[in-house]
């Protein structure tokens, strides 16, 4: 992975099982992880403070915008239904297309609308998909973070198990995690999982997705407890010989 700064043109957004819309998406609003601030100040306190800790958190992705693109499998047909829970991963490529280890912002969001933008002379017709709130029927309501890292950017089909090194977080964490999976293409059954390791060589399964790979799909899977320092994608091919997917992990 590359480190350092980047620009907007290297962002890639994946919504549910749809991976081909980055030719039309052109903006996504503020990606935020915010906590309430129930401030207090006892008589003897020197300053107002959050001694009780932060309040409930909120994840927001703002509004995803794209150029209206109609067609059999284009995003107008795929995303035109609002009031729907969407699994969304925003991958931040670092001065290049996203790669393993790059930052990601992921959520299981409520798509609150599907609406055209204000039209003006000469403007391309564009539509907005507000993704302002975490979905009430999401897989997990226990982790408020959103900020994670790419395990597989979906840039190549996978045809064998992963025997490579993983993404180094720098230390283990103890507050669980959420795995985000977007299966973009498959030609049979396949089991998808995320493994973790304390040393980047001895691996154990952290979580296994239920999606079986026999069709394109998206899924969020929660893990609890300790997540070791290194994590990587893993597959177990059934009848499939080739699968393409995007996978990210958000630690609690």
């Amino acid at each position, binding site marked *: 992975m590359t480190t350092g700064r*980047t620009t907007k043109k290297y962002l890639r957004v994946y919504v549910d099982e749809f991976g081909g819309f980055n030719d039309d998406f052109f903006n996504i609003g503020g*990606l935020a992880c915010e*906590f*309430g601030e129930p401030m207090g100040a006892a008589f003897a306190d020197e300053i*107002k*403070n959050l001694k009780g*800790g932060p309040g409930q958190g909120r994840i927001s992705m703002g509004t995803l915008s794209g150029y209206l693109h109609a067609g059999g499998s284009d995003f107008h047909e795929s995303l035109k239904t609002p009031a729907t829970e969407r699994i969304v991963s925003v991958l931040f490529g670092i001065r290049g297309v996203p790669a393993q280890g790059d*930052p990601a912002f992921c959520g299981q969001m409520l798509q609150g609308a599907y609406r055209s933008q204000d039209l003006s002379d000469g403007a391309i017709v564009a539509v907005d998909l507000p993704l302002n709130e975490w979905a009430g029927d999401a897989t997990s309501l226990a982790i408020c*973070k959103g900020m994670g890292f790419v395990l597989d950017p979906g840039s190549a089909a996978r045809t064998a198990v992963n025997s490579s090194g993983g993404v180094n977080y720098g*230390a283990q964490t103890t507050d669980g995690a959420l795995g985000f999976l977007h299966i973009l293409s498959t030609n049979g059954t396949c089991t998808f999982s995320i493994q973790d390791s304390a040393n980047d060589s001895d691996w154990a399964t952290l979580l296994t997705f239920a999606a079986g790979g026999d069709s394109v799909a998206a899924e969020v899977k929660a893990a609890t407890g300790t997540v070791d320092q290194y994590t990587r994608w893993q597959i177990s091919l059934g009848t499939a010989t080739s699968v393409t997917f995007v996978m990210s992990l958000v630690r609690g």
Partner: protein
Amino acid sequence: MAAQTGRTTFKYAEFHVDDSAGTLTQLTDLMGLSVVGLEYDEVDVTAWADAVKNALPGHPDAPIVARFRFSTTVFSHLSGIVGGLTPLSLDIQFGIRHAWEAGEPQFGITSTTTSGYICTAVRINPDDMTVEARFVVMGSTAPAFGTAAET
């Protein structure tokens, strides 16, 4: 070079905050800072017979919002501390026409198990690829201006 006196510019300001392991680290992608310092409630204690309205200081507040260029360093650092319960050391150093050194102004707090800052929000703006982080005091001890680095 010894500590200098006189005026300075923003390019010599540094933002340091603990990472998730408790290591005080400078985030060099800094590109903006809110006001820094204690701001006290001005509690009106005026009585009818007073000829002039008057006030006493109440509790102060000292939230800090820092803006950064989006980078892998900033993202990794903030993802590890946002929403956390562990008080963080925070040190904003104002170098006087050169990189800060002891004797020049700084504002912050050295964390203890019960006092410091916590990070309550991270907002990523993909439009200009910037990151905004908000820090609020946790615990009863106030940060302060000084001339010695926090630890």
